[in-house]
Structure formats: C-alpha cells, structure tokens
C-alpha cells in the first residue's frame, strides 16, 4: 500500500513538472505574446537582443529570465518613450537577468505580488528603477541599478523584504524602504548617489507604519551627487551628501556598515515634522528604538552642502557623523567618540539584546490571495496609469477627471483608445499603446476609472 501511494505521489509530482513548460522568446520578438501564452509555473527564456517593449505579467509563478550569450544580453529598451519596462502583479514571479534602460516611469515594478524575486538585473534610468510595492516576502538580490530620478531600489508599503548584494550608484537615493515592515538591507554597495540609504515613514499613504528594519554589512560611501530629481517632485527635497537617513520608522538597527566619505553627514535620524512631512495624524511622527551599533565611520561631514548644508551652517554645526533632530524615543548608540548632534537623550545600547535578524523572509512564504477583477484593475491603474495621469491635475497626460468627462460610462471606447492611442492634442506627449496588458486588464482599468475613481 505504501509503495502504491508513493508511486501515485511521485506520479503526480512528475505530472506537475511535465505541465510546467519552458517557453522561449526569439530575439526581438514580442515578450508579451509569450507571457500571454504562458501558464502558471512556466519559465520564459528571453534570447539576447533588443526589445522595445513593455511587459505585463499578472499570472502566478512565472519565471522570466533574460539570457546572455557572447557578451550580449536580453535588453529591454524604452527609448525614453515608453513608461514601464516589466510590471508584475502575479504572485511568485521571478524576474531575472535583464538589462533594462530608457524607461520614463518604472524599470521593473511589482504591484501586489507576493513571494517575488527580482534578481541579477541591470537597470539604468527611469524614475524608479526597481519598485516593488504592496508585496509580501520578496527578494531583491544581485541587481545593478543606476540613474534613477527617485530611488534605485524603492520598496513601498511591503512586508518581509530582503535587499541583498545589489550595487546602486548615481541615483538620487540608492536604496529605500518606505512604509515597510520587516526589511533587511545587507551586503549592498551603495555609492555616488545623492543619498545612500533611506528608511522612511511617509504620511498620507495607505500603510501607516514602518518598523523592524535592518541595515547591516553594507558599503555606503561617497554619496555626494547633486540631487537631480525633477524640481517638482518630492524626491527633489532629499538632502545630499548623507550616508543613511532614517525618517520615522521604529525598531531600526544599523550595524556593521562602512559609512565613508559623505560630505554632509554619515547618518541622519529625523522625525517626520522636522523633515517637512506633516499632515497625517494617523502616523506616529517620532521614531522609537533606533539602534546604531558598531559601524565603521570614515571622513563624514567634512563639507556639508545642499539643503542640510544650509541647516548646519545656520546652526553652526561641523564634522557631523551622526545627526538627529532629537525627538526619537528609547534610542541608543553603541560607539563612543563619534561627533554627534542631537543625541542627548540617547543611551548606550544594551549589548545583551540580539543585534538583528539575518533575513526578513518568511520561512513558509506568504499567502497568495487570488485577486478579483476589481483589485487587478486598481493594481494596474496604480502601476501604469498614474505614471502619467493624476486625478485632478495635469502630470504628463490629461487629468483623470477630464478623461471621465470625455468618456462617461463608455468603457469600450476608453479601452479602444488606451489600446491604440491617437494623438489629438499637441500640448501632450504621445501616449504609448497599452495593449500589452491584455483586454481583461484594460477592461478592469477602464471600469475602475469611469465608475469607481472619485474625487
């Protein structure tokens, strides 16, 4: 009997393995077409070549892997016309091995995808280069990211995320964890950005907490690049010349990092009000339990500049390694002999308290809820449409209010336009076609815009 059952189990396993296919995208052909064919569990191999495309993945357990051969890569190129490179909302997605460049909005983005992996990609440019949001249990490892006008790796409103062994340079922010719970940044190299690492709790967003974040064993050096974010974006206010900025999260551990060569300061801890982010009474503005353990500090604070430079000048502060706005609760620092400002209420860290957790990933993975049509519509709207459209003002395209006024309740007409836009007004740039998302997703988006989105 046992042997019979084992045979059945083995048979089932083999059957499942046989069902998971490997599909290949020939050089230069449509990646989306193959994604559309793929079934959950399939692997899509993309041959080296240049792909001027956006790719949308909303089915679960898809692995999409860019192949390299003889120095050639699978390169996604937005030609500075297309907004997004790869967007995924399917759970269990693995995005591996792509070179992504020339996109205006997002290089690689996941929205609502759990148990994801974004690994071994090279992403240059875009507003956000790698941007997982609303995800649980994700790994971002081995990527090289540069040229982002906001953050190179920007994790938003997610839980249990590891950012490991990446290289981030020449971005406004190298790495950021925003309104995120349980995150680890480890063994990354973060250099030549405007600011190296940011841990933030931003008010007004749907997730109101940020906690249990570890920044350990990273090399964070020479982040002194002039902030090049668009002047009308919130990223333009990020201070320059700082290694690590902590604004608002609780239970933060910073340990084992080399923090070197930052002209303004090695590390800054700020409350939300002092950082200019007030206006949401649901959010606790002051960090609690920030622990700065043993790190290596070399040559920070020698020549403050930018926004913080003016603050330091006004307050006559110099050579600051660690600087705080002084509102934190129950926070501590291990090392003595550092030049610090605002840490009068901090204590010496209790070394008997465990330093940190090694990984934030869940042993058994996160649940993978099946999204409804409405949820998919909202996720896709947020990921794709809001890159160019806001509700009641002009961003890059007309406002959603004006689109609603134009289309009324005619979802079909809106879907038709989105699939193959025709430029009607010269005061707006040309809208790229969105047909790659598929009719079902476009219908969900159109329904959400015309019926559910309100002022």
């Amino acid at each position, binding site marked *: 009997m046992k042997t019979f059952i084992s045979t059945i189990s083995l048979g089932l396993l083999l059957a499942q393995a046989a069902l998971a296919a490997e599909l290949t995208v020939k050089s230069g052909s449509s990646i989306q077409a193959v994604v559309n064919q793929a079934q959950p569990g399939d692997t899509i191999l993309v041959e080296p070549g240049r792909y001027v495309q956006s790719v949308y993945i909303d089915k679960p357990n898809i692995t999409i892997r860019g192949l390299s051969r003889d120095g050639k890569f699978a390169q996604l190129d937005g030609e500075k016309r297309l907004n997004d490179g790869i967007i995924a909302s399917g759970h269990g997605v693995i995005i591996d091995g792509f070179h992504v460049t020339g996109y205006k909005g997002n290089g690689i983005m996941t*929205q609502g995808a759990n148990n994801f992996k974004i690994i071994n990609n090279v992403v240059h440019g875009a507003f956000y280069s790698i941007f997982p949001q609303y995800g649980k249990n994700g790994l971002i490892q081995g990527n090289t990211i540069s040229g982002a006008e906001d953050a190179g790796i920007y994790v938003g409103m997610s839980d249990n995320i590891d950012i490991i062994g990446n290289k981030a340079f020449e971005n406004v922010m190298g790495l950021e964890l925003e309104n995120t719970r349980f995150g680890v940044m480890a063994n990354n190299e973060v250099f030549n950005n405007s600011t190296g690492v940011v841990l933030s709790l931003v008010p007004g967003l749907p997730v109101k907490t940020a906690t249990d974040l570890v920044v350990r064993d990273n090399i964070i050096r020479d982040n002194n690049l002039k902030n090049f974010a668009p002047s009308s974006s919130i990223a333009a*206010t990020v201070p320059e010349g700082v290694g690590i900025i902590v604004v608002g999260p609780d239970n933060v551990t910073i340990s084992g990092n080399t923090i070197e060569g930052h002209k303004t300061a090695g590390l800054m801890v700020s409350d939300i009000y002092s*950082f200019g982010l007030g206006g949401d009474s*649901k959010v606790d503005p002051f960090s609690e339990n920030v622990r700065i353990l043993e790190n290596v500090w070399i040559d920070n604070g020698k020549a403050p500049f930018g926004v913080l430079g003016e603050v330091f000048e006004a307050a006559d502060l110099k050579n600051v390694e660690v600087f705080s706005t*002084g*509102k934190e609760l129950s926070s501590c620092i291990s090392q003595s002999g550092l030049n610090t400002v*605002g840490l009068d209420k901090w204590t010496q860290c209790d070394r008997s308290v465990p330093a940190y957790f090694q990984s934030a990933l869940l042993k058994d993975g996160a649940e993978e809820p099946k999204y409804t049509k409405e949820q998919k519509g909202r996720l896709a709207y*947020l990921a794709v449409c809001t890159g160019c459209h806001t509700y009641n003002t*002009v961003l890059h395209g007309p406002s959603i209010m004006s689109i609603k006024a134009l289309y009324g309740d005619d979802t079909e007409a809106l879907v038709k336009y989105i699939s193959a836009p025709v430029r009607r007004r010269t005061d707006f740039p040309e809208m790229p076609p969105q047909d790659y998302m598929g009719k079902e997703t476009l219908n969900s988006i159109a329904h959400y815009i015309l019926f559910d989105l309100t002022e």
Partner: protein
Amino acid sequence: MNKRLSALIALPIILAGCSSAAVKPVNDQVITEKQNALCSALGDSQKMKQVYPDLLKQKWDRYAYGCGALYQYELAQDSWFGITLKAEALASQISYLDILSKQYPRIYQEGEAARELSKEWFATKARAESLISSLDRYDWLAAEIPLLHGAYLIVSVEKEATVKESFKVIPHARTLLQESVADDPAAGDALGYLLLGRLAMSLPTFFGGDIDKATDYFEKGVKQAPDNLEMLRWLTEAYLNQRQHEKANLALTDAVAVMARATINIQDKADLMTDLGGLALRLNRQDALGVFSAERQKLLSENPYLLDRKYHASLGHGGTDPVTGKDANEI
C-alpha cells in the same frame, strides 16, 4: 480681536518645499492676472465691502477666498488709519497662505497649475508684507499685532522658501510670539501658545525644538482658550508622542465635548475631525473615533462643496489602497 485666525495656520517646514537655490518671486505684484480677471468687484469699494465677509468664509474655494482676501486688502490700503481693518486684512492673507499651502500636492506637480499657485503665493506674501509695514509701528497698541506678524513669518516659509530663509525667520517669529503671549496670552484665542507649541514640536532640538516645551505651551493655551478645538488636537498629539497616554485620552475626551459647541469654519472643522480621528485611532478610542467620524460625514454630506482632502495617486504612489479599495486617510 478675531477668532478666525486661530484656525489652522501652517507651520514652518524646514526641508520640504525648500531648496538651496535662491527662490525668486514669480510676481512681485500684489495681485495676479488671474485674480484681476476673476475678482470682479475690484475697484468698486462699495461692492468689495459688501461681498468680502462672505467670501472669507469659503475656505473650500481657493479662488473665492482669494478674492475676499484681496478685497479686504484693497479696502485696508484705502483706509488711512484703519488699524483694525489692516490687522484683519493681514489675518486673511495669513489664512489664505495656509489655504494655498494645502494646494501644493504631495508628490509631483508641474505645469500651469503649479505656476499659477506660485504666482498667488508670492502675490499674497507681497500683500501681507505691505500690511505689516503699516502695522508694525503700532505693535505697542495691541498684542495682536506682533502675534499676526509672528504668524505671518511662520506661514511665509511654508512653501517656496530656501532653508536659509526659513532659519532666518524662525527666531524672529518666536520672539514676536513670546512678546505677544507675555502681553496678552489670550489674544487670538491663545494663538500665540498654539504656534509656539507647534514650533517646539516641529523643529529639531538644536534649533529650539522641544517636545516637553511644546506640551507646556499647549497646556497653557488650553487654560486660556478651553474651547479651542485645534489646541486640544495638538495637546492630544503632544501627550501621545510623549507616550503619556492617560493625559492624551483626557485631552481627547475634552475635544469630544468641545466639538459639539465649536463655532469654527466648517472646512476647518471637517479637517480637524480627520486629525482628531487619526489620534483617536492611535489611542484605540473607538468611542471618540465614532463621534469625529460621524461629525465629519455629516459636514461633508450637508456641505458637498467642502474639500475632503483626498490624496490622489501619482507616479505609482499614494491614493486608495489598491488591494482593499479603501482610502486609508478617511476616518
């Protein structure tokens, strides 16, 4: 003098809205082209006098309020010795700057809307500064004058200001407010204590920020103006941020009691209900949350023109939660 001032004056934001590059006014005139076109009573003193009081109630309509503030300014300028009118006109410019500052979006804006906002910002500042220059010589007459001057300095660097400019005005603002509360702590419904408290809460400690001092100012403010709902809001938050939960709960309970009889502008009240609701959530006070939520919903449904301050998503960021479909900022 007037209780209109006491509602929701903005506070210095040290870093947001600031850059290290010099900020040049878009328009150093006291009126923008758009206002010139929109505010049809301009030039007609009788008409302006007749309409401005009602316009100044409409905090939900930036253009209506803006015309009201402009008319009041013009009338004050025409009045040779009208100190009260000038002071009230200054209060309206300050309130208008507060209204404008809330129009600046969180994440990203460019284009015509941004340029128009900037023009209005600088024009309003020019008007306020003109009024201050005529009022300052009379600061010995009434505590309200240094109070208004201090309040203006604070709101003037809320947006479109460099860090240097912010840091330059804050000590001066603080001195003026301290003078005012020493002279008459109850002036403007204890506005001096409210602003001093908010400064102490929002500034870094190396620049005079101090949460204990903030609490002290709010406590004094509540003693002077026990029915000031905004004061109670900030006192509750100060206690909460110090983890003095028992005191925070008491302050919140007082806020519930005061709410019923508060006679503040309905837009301000709707906004305060959101703030107080957020604090009630953090204190796990479902009873208070229910009261504030019900009041807010009632205000919004009876006055559909009120702004609900929804933050819409842009650049893949913000808005309602796409998984739940709910607006997490609503109470």
